[in-house]
């Protein structure tokens, strides 16, 4: 009998729409996330990432469509969903007037962690995020990176099946960001959780197993980072030789691709750039002066898909949208 490996979707989102008045924050998105993977939601500010997380973690009601976690509908079976998820929000949600340990105790009680388990899990979590020695310090004395690590630790206390990280590195310095990522990529293996994260940093999205690029409330494309990069044609190889004319015709013969020249350097695109380099060197021998390989980034993907750079003015228009949504919420919350 043949067993097929069937990936288990733990998060299912179908035709999800969220409107605030005339404003469509999330516009008909569908996707699935497999168990034990890191899924990234990549897009500029205001693209609808946080709104989607809000719906998935039962804080917002969708306008239409459905979202479910482990088969439980996020809108109708909130309580079941809440038990199986952990969340690290964009803005810190720690009580700054309590100590790190007290914040974790608070969480453990809220999630009804058994008494016999409580202390062990809390100590484990503090050790895991390297804050064991600071456990009895008030959170207001912590740096941004420490707070974020503590929040991740807190999110894991009740052993969730899915951990949501909404812009986990926002506002952190590069060093802290790098450390936090080293720590996050370990989570699925060490804690057996599925990670759903959002970011607007292209380089950060590369740690994901799968990525959905979202812009203006719509999913533009979904795939592994490799697949997405392939859509823009692969790697670019730059070659400098003592005789560029001869080299150009040699390489063109070798790979049957077009080779261009710019600033005394030949360049060509290839899906498997790293494998091409030895062949080029073998064919051209001593005449090769330098070879370098440039891998496409997700920024290139975003640029190709949307025709816009992700940063620059696009971010500010996103911020405007975000501000509009916030204002709308403030005004209409009460009605």
């Amino acid at each position: 009998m043949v067993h097929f490996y069937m990936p288990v979707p733990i998060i299912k989102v179908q035709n999800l729409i969220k409107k605030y008045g005339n404003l469509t924050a999330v516009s008909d998105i569908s996707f699935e996330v497999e168990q034990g993977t890191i899924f990234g939601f990549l897009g500029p500010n205001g693209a609808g990432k946080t709104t989607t997380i809000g719906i998935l973690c039962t804080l917002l009601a969708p306008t239409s469509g459905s979202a479910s976690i482990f088969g439980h509908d996020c809108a109708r079976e909130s309580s079941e969903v809440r038990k199986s998820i952990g969340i690290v929000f964009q803005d810190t949600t720690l009580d700054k007037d309590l100590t790190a340990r007290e914040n974790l105790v608070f969480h453990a009680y809220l999630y009804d962690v058994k008494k016999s388990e409580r202390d062990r899990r809390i100590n484990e979590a503090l050790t895991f995020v390297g804050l064991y020695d600071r456990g009895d310090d008030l959170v207001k004395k912590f740096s941004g990176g420490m707070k974020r690590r503590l929040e991740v630790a807190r999110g894991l206390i009740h052993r969730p099946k899915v951990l949501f990280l909404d812009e986990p590195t926002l506002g952190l310095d590069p060093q802290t960001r790098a450390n936090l990522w080293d720590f996050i990529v370990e989570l699925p293996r060490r804690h057996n959780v599925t990670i759903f994260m959002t970011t607007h940093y292209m380089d950060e999205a590369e740690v994901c197993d799968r990525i959905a690029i979202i812009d203006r409330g719509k999913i533009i494309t979904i795939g592994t980072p490799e697949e997405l990069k392939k859509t823009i044609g692969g790697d670019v190889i730059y070659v400098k030789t003592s005789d560029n004319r001869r080299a150009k015709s040699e390489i063109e013969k070798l790979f049957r691709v077009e080779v261009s020249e710019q600033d005394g350097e030949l360049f060509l695109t290839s899906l498997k750039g790293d494998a091409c380099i030895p062949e080029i060197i073998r064919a051209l021998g001593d005449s090769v002066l330098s070879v370098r390989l440039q891998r496409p980034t997700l920024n290139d993907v975003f640029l190709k898909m949307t025709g816009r750079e992700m940063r620059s003015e696009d971010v500010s228009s996103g911020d405007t949208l975000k501000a509009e949504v916030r204002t709308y919420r403030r005004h209409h919350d009460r009605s």
Partner: protein
Amino acid sequence: MIEVNAVYVLVAREFKKFIRERSRLISTIARPLIWLFLVGGGMSKLVSPGMGLMGVSYIQFIFPGILGMTILFSAIFSSISIIWDKEFGLMKEILVAPVSRFSIVAGKALSGTIVSVIQAVIILALFPFLGIRIGATGIIETILVCTLLSFCIASLGIVIATFYDNFESFSVIMNFIVMPMFFLSGAMYPVKMLPQILKLVARLNPLTYGIDALKHTVFEGAGIFDFSLVTDVCVLLATSVVFVGVAGTLFERKK
């Protein structure tokens, strides 16, 4: 459904913070003392015991009102910390937890109750210095009324807090809700003496019944009450139930 674990931890958090923030305790105790001795002491010379106060001096007369004031301020403050939690995020952590909204409301209301009763008891301990005599039963009854009133006001505070999500609204709540509630409660002058319209407003104010009940328990049978003790307690119980129900429902709403 009420989750005991959640209610417990919400109360424990509030209590821990209450003990840690000495300045908060000092300022909430200082306010009633200032009113009692500076306002009450000063007014005593103007108000003669004959003016409808049934033989008690003015400073004695306002004592139940000052207890009510202590409760009003501390219970509302405690509940309004929900707005603080919304602004600084902790409320989200609570809302995504697998805990019913009624547990959150119950936890918050009980936190406010405990914190207020502690402060009211500290003020109550002043009665011998004011020449008031209260027996042991009177003291117990007074503390029970304080508890009920605290719960009622704390629940009202939660209802108010659900309507605001930033701290700029704080002064609005203070100036347009808390201060009028205090002045139209019979704390500083008998409700009987108010003009007809204000008398009507005072009758809609739960604090009026709380302070009236405290007058019953502090001055056993001095005859300066507006309602019977049974009426007071029933009104407080009924409004508490309504406020908790409304607060729970408002919390349950999703955006």
